[in-house]
C-alpha cells in the first residue's frame, strides 16, 4: 500500500527526483514501523491518558501475547490487530511526503516524519480508533481514518509546504509528471490495498466488510468519473492523471464513510468528492504554496468532504451494524433523519484535527528549519535531488554509456567516518548533520 503511494507520487515528479520521492515515501515503513512497535501502538490503543494512550502500556509489544481485541466470537489476537493498524500509521506519515518534492533534505524528512508520527498521528489515532475523544466522547463516524489519516496528513502537508517554500520555477516552469503509467500503477495499487484497509477495518470477513468493499469500489470509481468529467468540461479532455487522482480522492473520501452509507450514498459521495478535489488542486496556484503533488487538494479536501458528507448521507440501516453508538447518539445523516446533529459532530471533529495538525506540523517544520536546515541548496536543487541526496539516477535506458567505474577500496568495511564527497556535489554539512 505504502509502496503503491511511492509509485503514485514517484511518477508525478520529474525524472530527476523520482528516487528521492520514492525514498521519502518508503522510509516510514522502517522508521514509523519501529516507533509503532516501541510505543506508537501503545499511544494509539493504550488506555487513554487524555492526550493519547500511555506510551508505556504496551511498550515494545510487551503484554500483548495472549491479548485479544473485539468481543468474543469475533475477537482477533491483539498482535494481528497491531500488525493491521501499523499499515495505517505508516501510510498516514508517507502521505505527507507528497508536498515536499524535489527540495527537502532527506535527513530533515526523516526527523520531520518521525516527530510528525509521534505528535500528530499517534494521538489522532487514539482519538479516532482507540480510547480517545472523537470516537468515544463525540461519537463521530470515521470508519477507517478520514480524519486521523487524511485530514491530518493533508494539514501537515500544507504546513510543511509553507515552511519549505516553493520549488525553483514553481508556477512558471513546467513540471510535468515524468511517468504517468507509474502514477496509474500507484493509484490502482492504492485502490487494491484500500479494499484491505476498508473491508479489513470490519475486523473479519463479515457483512460490514462486504458493503465496505462495495462502497470502496463505488466511491473510488465515482470520484474517478467526477474528476474526469470536470476536466472534460473545463479543459476539453479527460486525462489519465486526472483519472488516477480521482481514484485516490475517492478512496480518501470514502474512507471514513464506507460502512455508514448505502451504495447509492457512496455513488453520490464519490462524484462530489471527485469533482471538488479536481477543482481544489488549483488552489495552490491561487494561494502560492507549493504543495507539489496536491496532498492538500486530494487528501485534506477529500478527507474533509468525505467526513462531512457522512453528516448528510449516513444511512441508519448501515450505521446500525457498523456504528451503533453514533447512530444512537446523533441519529442518522441529515437526508435520512432531518437532523443536523451528526453533521455538526462530523464538522467539529474534522476541523479539530485539521487545526491541530496544521499548527503542530508547522512548529515541527519550523524548528527543523531553524536547527538542522530543511532544504537543499539552490545549486543542488538545480542539479537534481536524486543525484545530490542519493548519488543515483532513476533510469539509464540509453545503450550508450558515458560512464567509467571505480571500485572503492573501502567497499567492505568503512575506512573513515565520512568518506570524501566531491565538494561541488554535496554540501558536506548535509550528510554530516544526519549521521548523528
Amino acid at each position, binding site marked *: 500500500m505504502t509502496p503503491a503511494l511511492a509509485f503514485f507520487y514517484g511518477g508525478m515528479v520529474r525524472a530527476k527526483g523520482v528516487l528521492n520521492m520514492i525514498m521519502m515515501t518508503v522510509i516510514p515503513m522502517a522508521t514509523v514501523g519501529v516507533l509503532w512497535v516501541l510505543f506508537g501502538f501503545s499511544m494509539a490503543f493504550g488506555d487513554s491518558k487524555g492526550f493519547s494512550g500511555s506510551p508505556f502500556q504496551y511498550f515494545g509489544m510487551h503484554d500483548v501475547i495472549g491479548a485479544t481485541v473485539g468481543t468474543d466470537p469475533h475477537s482477533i489476537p491483539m498482535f494481528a490487530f497491531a500488525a493491521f493498524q501499523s499499515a495505517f500509521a505508516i501510510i498516514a506519515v508517507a502521505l505527507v511526503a507528497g508536498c515536499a518534492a524535489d527540495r527537502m533534505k532527506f535527513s530533515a524528512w526523516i526527523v520531520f516524519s518521525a516527530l510528525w508520527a509521534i505528535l500528530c498521528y499517534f494521538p489522532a489515532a487514539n482519538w479516532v480508533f482507540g480510547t480517545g475523544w472523537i470516537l468515544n466522547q463525540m461519537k463521530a463516524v470515521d470508519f477507517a481514518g478520514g480524519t486521523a489519516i487524511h485530514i491530518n496528513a493533508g494539514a501537515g502537508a500544507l504546513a510543511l509546504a509553507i515552511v519549505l517554500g516553493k520549488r525553483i520555477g514553481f508556477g512558471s516552469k513546467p513540471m*510535468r509528471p515524468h511517468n504517468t503509467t507509474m502514477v496509474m500503477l500507484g493509484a490502482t495499487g492504492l485502490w487494491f490495498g484500500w479494499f484491505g484497509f476498508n473491508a479489513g477495518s470490519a475486523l473479519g470477513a463479515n457483512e460490514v466488510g462486504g458493503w465496505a468493499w462495495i462502497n470502496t469500489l463505488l466511491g473510488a470509481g465515482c470520484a474517478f468519473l467526477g474528476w474526469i468529467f470536470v*476536466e472534460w468540461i473545463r479543459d*476539453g479532455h479527460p*486525462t489519465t*492523471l*486526472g483519472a488516477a*487522482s480521482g481514484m485516490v480522492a475517492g478512496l480518501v473520501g470514502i474512507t471514513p464513510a464506507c460502512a455508514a452509507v448505502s451504495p447509492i450514498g457512496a455513488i453520490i459521495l464519490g462524484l462530489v468528492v471527485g469533482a471538488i478535489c479536481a477543482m481544489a*488542486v*488549483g488552489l495552490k496556484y491561487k494561494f502560492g504554496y507549493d504543495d507539489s503533488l496536491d496532498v492538500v487538494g486530494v487528501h485534506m479536501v477529500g478527507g474533509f468532504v468525505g467526513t462531512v458528507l457522512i453528516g448528510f448521507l449516513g444511512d441508519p440501516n448501515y450505521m446500525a451494524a457498523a456504528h451503533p453508538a453514533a447512530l444512537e447518539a446523533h441519529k442518522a445523516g441529515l437526508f435520512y433523519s432531518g437532523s443536523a446533529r451528526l453533521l455538526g459532530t462530523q464538522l467539529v471533529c474534522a476541523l479539530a484535527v485539521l487545526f491541530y495538525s496544521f499548527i503542530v506540523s508547522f512548529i515541527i517544520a519550523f524548528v527543523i528549519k531553524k536547527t538542522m536546515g530543511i532544504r537543499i541548496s539552490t545549486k543542488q536543487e538545480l542539479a537534481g535531488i536524486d543525484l545530490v541526496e542519493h548519488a543515483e539516477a532513476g533510469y539509464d535506458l540509453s545503450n550508450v554509456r558515458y560512464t567509467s567505474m571505480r571500485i572503492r577500496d573501502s567497499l567492505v568495511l568503512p575506512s573513515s567516518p565520512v568518506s570524501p564527497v566531491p565538494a561541488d556535489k554535496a554540501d558536506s554539512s548535509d550528510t554530516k548533520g544526519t549521521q548523528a
Partner: protein
Amino acid sequence: MKLITAIVQPAVLDNVQIALATKGVAGMTVSEASGYARQRGHVEVYRGAEFTIDFVEKVRIEILASDADAEEITTTICDAARTGEIGDGKVWVTPVEDVIRIRTAERGDAAI
C-alpha cells in the same frame, strides 16, 4: 565532397530511406531532433495546468556524398519528404574537406 543534412518529419523517414536506396545511396546516419518554427507545438494538461510543448519532433538525416552526387541526393530527399504541410523541414548542404572510413582508413570519395 558534401555533407547533406536534412531535418524531416519522423513519419517520412521510411519514404526517404526507400527513395535513396533506389538511387543507390549506400549509407546514412540518422538522429532525433526537435524543431521550432512555423509549425506549432501542442498543448498538454496536467491537473488543470496547461503545458505547451513548443518543439516538434523531427528526424535529422546526414549523408556524405561526392560533389557529383550531392544535387541528386538533395532533390531525392526533398521529393520523398514532401507532404506539403507546414513542418516538412529543411535540407542543407555543407562542404566537407575530408572523409575517412574508419575500418579501412580509406580517404576521400572512396570512403563514402
